[in-house]
């Protein structure tokens, strides 16, 4: 079974600064997807960024980028130019590549606080 671990329960950063959230995972599969989701107080999970395991190039979405280290099974999220609206719970998630809509396996989450 796959597991996802987020070792930082809480992180804080000054507005406009850069912060990196850590995530490690364990799997015996070679092809899979990794995601970062944001959960604001509204409770809805919002997809931030996604990475396909077969792609060596790190995914980037505007101010959000990842550092995907497949051999180390590490998948960190970097948020540049942090904004007050980035404050939320952030979850790392894993999904198998298998047929159909495979389940998401989530980490425990990191609460990100943005200091003005």
């Amino acid at each position, binding site marked *: 079974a796959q597991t996802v671990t987020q070792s930082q329960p809480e992180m804080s950063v000054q507005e406009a600064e850069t912060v990196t959230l850590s995530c490690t995972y364990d799997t015996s599969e070679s092809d899979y997807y990794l995601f970062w989701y944001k959960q604001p107080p509204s409770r809805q999970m919002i997809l931030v960024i996604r990475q396909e395991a077969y792609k060596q190039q790190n995914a980037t979405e505007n101010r959000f980028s990842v550092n995907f280290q497949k051999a180390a099974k590490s998948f960190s999220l970097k948020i540049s130019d942090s904004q007050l609206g980035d404050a939320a719970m952030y979850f790392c998630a894993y999904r198998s590549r298998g047929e159909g809509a495979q*389940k998401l396996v989530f980490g425990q989450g990191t609460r990100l606080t943005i200091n003005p």
Partner: protein
Amino acid sequence: DAGVTQSPTHLIKTRGQQVTLRCSPKSGHDTVSWYQQALGQGPQFIFQYYEEEERQRGNFPDRFSGHQFPNYSSELNVNALLLGDSALYLCASTPRGFSRLDYGYTFGSGTRLTVV
């Protein structure tokens, strides 16, 4: 385009009672998954429905059951409620036959269940 809608938003039940939560998937999505998110934790996969059948199931007891209707909407039923069932219940939908370029899940804002 409506996203995933869940009802009710909040619910208070007494131990031993039964509860039904409802989910309408995003337009164009035919697969519905349910997740339980305890306070301060990441979501845990309960089960997934496609073509009105349970396709995958997480490590949850038989007290948790579900149903999917021909219009793809879904219900989550929990019998003999325990205090430990208090959580946020999230519904996520996705198209079943998605390609590598379309593997996103759309989440609802959840139902907050409190068991007293």
